[in-house]
């Protein structure tokens, strides 16, 4: 594939990310000076003025580089991606979080890996050398590791980080996989990568670092664990 003709559509779902969206846009432009890309902000009716900030950013960077495609209210991550996909004009789609836990400085390594290997999906992994997490206490790391071992044993997914949501997809592959996924939240991320793996998609991984700044406000309580286990059983049976 001719590298010069690739266009990357970066879908960023937002909710109350007034400050972070401006920072992320700046960082994306900083780290992708030579690529053809667009940023699609799917905002779910944030009350904090996120959309106003995006409009200012559009004036600064151009409306062809930053697309604002809002929705009326919080409708979930999966549908946010589907909504963003409808407006994506690139042949590749990147999904990432808006809260700066995913750093745009890794975008070149995703792109590079895809060009080198011709992979359909490049997924970021926090759990290998070169990657890592900051901001998690021992309990959180323990739950994460336990959950990962369980998922590896039961699902044989072929990737080291199942719940990560910093990924690069070929647009056609994303459209195909997303249409068969029904879960919500992080189980949705797991379902996407497992279904892609079952379909025989060529998946590569790159190490990424994950700085959790919101930990403390998003507790990992009993109900999350139950949801996770239910998700695992569901995936075990249906994939």
């Amino acid at each position, binding site marked *: 594939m001719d590298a010069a003709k690739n266009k990357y559509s970066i879908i960023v779902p937002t909710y109350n990310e*007034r*400050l972070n969206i*401006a*920072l992320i846009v*700046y*960082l994306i432009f900083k780290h992708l000076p030579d690529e053809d890309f667009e940023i699609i902000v799917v905002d779910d009716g944030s009350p904090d003025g996120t959309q106003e*900030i995006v409009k*200012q*950013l559009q004036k*600064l960077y151009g409306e062809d580089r930053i697309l604002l495609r809002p929705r009326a209210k919080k409708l979930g991550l999966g549908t946010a991606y589907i909504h963003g996909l409808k407006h994506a004009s690139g042949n590749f789609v990147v999904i990432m979080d808006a809260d*700066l836990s995913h*750093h745009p*400085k890794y975008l070149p390594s995703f792109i590079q890996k895809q060009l080198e290997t011709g992979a359909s999906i490049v997924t970021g992994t*926090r*759990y*290998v*050398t*070169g*990657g*890592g*997490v*900051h*901001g998690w206490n*021992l309990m959180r*790391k*323990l739950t*994460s*590791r*336990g959950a*990962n*071992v369980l998922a590896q*044993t*039961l*699902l*044989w997914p072929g990737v080291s980080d199942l719940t990560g949501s910093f990924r690069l997809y070929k647009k056609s592959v994303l459209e195909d996989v997303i249409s068969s996924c029904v879960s919500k939240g992080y189980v949705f991320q797991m379902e996407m990568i497992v279904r892609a793996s079952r379909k025989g998609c060529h998946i590569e991984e790159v190490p990424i*670092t994950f*700085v959790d700044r919101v930990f403390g406000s998003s507790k990992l309580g009993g109900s999350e664990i139950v949801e996770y286990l239910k998700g695992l059983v569901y*995936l*075990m*049976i*249906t*994939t």
Partner: protein
Amino acid sequence: MKNVLKLLSLLVVISALWIGLLQASIIPQSHTWLLHIYFIVSLGCYGLLMVGVGLMRFPTCPQEALLLQQDIAEAKDFLKQKGDDVGSD
């Protein structure tokens, strides 16, 4: 094949091998249930070991938090120059 079926068939194969080994072994009948217990316990221990080793080797990146703060400061400066008021954290 769904993964649960893959796992179940693996379980069946292992059980068949296990029974075959038992029949060929020299341990008296009354003690075979002990063997089953040992096997399950060692499986559990292996699982815990995997979790423990992974926990010890959990990659962390404290320097990334610092780098992120620098990036944030740089971004805020740039945007302020361009007249974008993004407010404070």
